[in-house]
């Protein structure tokens, strides 16, 4: 039993922490969001250079061979930055869904994911996307940051079988509709009208579910990092801001609320650690159940921290200008992606039975 970080993990933590501190202050982030592409291509390139996409790729395939704890360390360090780039998606899901193909793994940063469809909520069954004769038709929603992507990995059915397909974004039969999420991250809908689709061998529904579970567990760590940052910011605000002649932090009620928020964050962190450990040790239903337990528990904490950190900031918390809202919006959005609390409560209970 050992909760300390390895030398490699400490380096990852430092590298990512320094990047966030230097490049992703809340003010810098606002600037990036205002750009046409919804993020800063230069900063994105710097992020790419950190090589985080390699963390979860096996060493014999040119990666760092890291485990779920490594992904967790990166995620928690990224959290305070609310980065606009799809780091975790690439690091965990693209790596897991590449089917071991070197051409994808070497260039994983250029791939995005089309796994969800409008009107299907959190289902991964790709009911509305078909492949026939190497051509894909249908549409995907909530596709992460497409600005840097040359290809999308898209789930679709072919002859009644669910598979994963690689589609070039430059294909004329691919239409993009870009939008920001509520938290400002640039995402998109993709429409396919017969674009060329290349099947990724060995990837079916089970592999997709497992990859999304690993991504979910990694995203939980990002949420923990964001919650900790929101807590720190709230603590700072209460210490500085005065009312009725005293710092807000002198009011017992507000102290207790800070304590409760701290416990939520610590609970969430423990749950993220537990889930990463499960991700290292299990596969199949046990993995899905771990992801669901973590997302349900951490999702609740995320809503709590989002709402109470706004409330404890009072009017300032309601403004777009002051930063706490950025964390709150991120945490709310976190809950709307990859299954909400009810979805994961239900799945964890089904898989326990």
């Amino acid at each position, binding site marked *: 039993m050992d909760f300390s970080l390895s030398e490699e993990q400490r380096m990852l933590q430092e590298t990512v922490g320094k990047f966030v501190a230097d490049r992703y202050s809340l003010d810098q982030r606002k600037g990036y969001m205002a750009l046409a592409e919804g993020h800063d291509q230069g900063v994105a390139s710097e992020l790419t250079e950190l090589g985080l996409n390699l963390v979860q790729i096996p060493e014999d395939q040119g990666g760092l061979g890291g485990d779920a704890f490594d992904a967790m360390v990166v995620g928690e360090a990224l959290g305070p930055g609310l980065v606009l780039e799809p780091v975790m998606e690439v690091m965990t899901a693209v790596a897991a869904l590449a089917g071991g193909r070197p051409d994808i793994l070497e260039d994983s940063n250029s791939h995005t994911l089309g796994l*969800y469809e*409008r*009107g*299907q*909520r*959190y*289902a991964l*069954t790709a009911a509305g996307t078909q492949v026939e004769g190497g051509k894909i038709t249908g549409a995907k*929603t*909530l596709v992460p940051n497409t600005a840097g992507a040359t290809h999308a990995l898209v789930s679709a059915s072919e002859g009644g079988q669910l598979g994963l397909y690689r589609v070039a974004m430059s294909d004329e039969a691919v239409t993009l*509709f870009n*939008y*920001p*999420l*509520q938290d*400002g991250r640039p*995402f998109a*809908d993709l429409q396919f009208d017969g674009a060329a689709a290349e099947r990724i061998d060995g990837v079916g529904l089970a592999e997709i579910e497992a990859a999304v579970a690993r991504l979910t567990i990694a995203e939980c760590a990002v949420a923990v990092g964001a919650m900790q940052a929101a807590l720190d910011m709230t603590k700072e605000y209460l210490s500085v801001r*005065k*009312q*009725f002649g005293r710092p807000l932090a002198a009011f017992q*009620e*507000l102290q207790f609320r800070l304590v409760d928020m701290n416990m939520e964050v610590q609970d969430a962190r423990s749950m993220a650690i537990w889930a990463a450990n499960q991700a290292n040790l299990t596969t199949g239903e046990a993995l899905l159940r771990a992801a669901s337990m973590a997302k349900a528990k951490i999702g609740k904490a995320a*809503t709590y921290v989002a*709402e109470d950190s*706004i*409330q404890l900031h*009072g*009017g300032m*918390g*309601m*403004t*777009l*200008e002051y930063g706490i*809202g950025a964390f*709150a*919006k991120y945490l*709310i*959005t976190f*809950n*709307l*992606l990859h299954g*909400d609390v*009810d*979805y994961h*409560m*239900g799945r964890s209970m089904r898989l326990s039975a």
Partner: protein
Amino acid sequence: MDLKFSDEDLAFQKTIEAFCEDHVSKETRQKIALGHRLSKQDIVDYHKVLYEHGYAVPNWKQEWGGRDWTSIQHQIFDDVTAAYDCPRRLAFGVSMVGPVLQAFGSREQQEKYLPRIARLDDWWCQGFSEPGSGSDLASLKTTAVRDGDEYVINGQKTWTTYAQHADMMFILTRTDNECKPQEGISFMLLDMKTPGVTVKPIILLDGYHEVNEVFFDDVRIPAENLVGQENKGWDYAKFLLAHERFGIAQIGYAKNQLNRLRDIAAQERTEDGERLIDNMFFSQKLAEIEMDLTALEVTNLRVLSDVKNQSDLTFAGMLKIRGSDLNQKLTRLIMEAVGPAAAVEQQDLVLHGRNEPPLGPDYAGGAAPSYLNNRKLSIFGGSNEIQRTIIAKAMLTA
């Protein structure tokens, strides 16, 4: 004891329903139903319709166009207009400065301003909060210094709702520094076009421009714009806030949101094809919130129908706390019911209307912005923490 509406009340309800159906803009109501934001013109148009039908200032004295409705009738009006997705009536003129002028204003002030408020010829805003004063209103610092026939105002207000649309502001100023904070405050009327007034927008979490900072740099207003006596403004403000408390629980709004939630949950299907409204988690939350709303509605009626309860501060605070909690919970549940489609930001659609079709169902775009905007319910107008402090004081000194 009798909890049934009288025949008279039922007839009144029908009248208001017909009014909403026949006279309130369907386009405006649709915007509200979808959680899209109204333009200034939408709000003005609605007020004009209210005015034409005699519903603009029902709470006023009859002399000035009031209707002498019972508390229950006021509640029915609020419930029905909410159920029909009508806008909420703009409070600043009708519910705030109007009653203050009727109670404490000079005859000249009454004749000059009240008819213009009733017709919304003047859009009013409220100059109370200041940066740094927060919930501690009495610590306000904006000064008004008498200079001949004028007051010279310097300082800053903040969280000023719709100052960008406003023609007039009622403002609390400090006119005496040599006494207890509450005793040196005056209540004044200020033309927003006076030189030296600067309005700076504050954008809220949902991207909406609803509140503002307002700066005063040697703003000169006529001394006759003082309401009542100098240094008695705190009393008038307290009167105003007590008046504002009416409808504080926002029952009608909550009921309407609950219906919307049910509609959405009946349309949405889970990954298994089950209707969301039949899902074990969701149906349970619906049942719980329905119970909460039932209890709150009865509490509200207990207050409305009993003068003793109306002056009981524990009730006023409770209606504010429970009402805001409930409405916040409802907007959160609507967002959860919409699900992943609510994660997509469609600010142009929600704020400005857009010609392209919405992404996802038509109710998706407004869900998260409404949720974010409603976080204000427990902060503005006396935060829920302040409400609890007031209730505790009332309980412990009772």
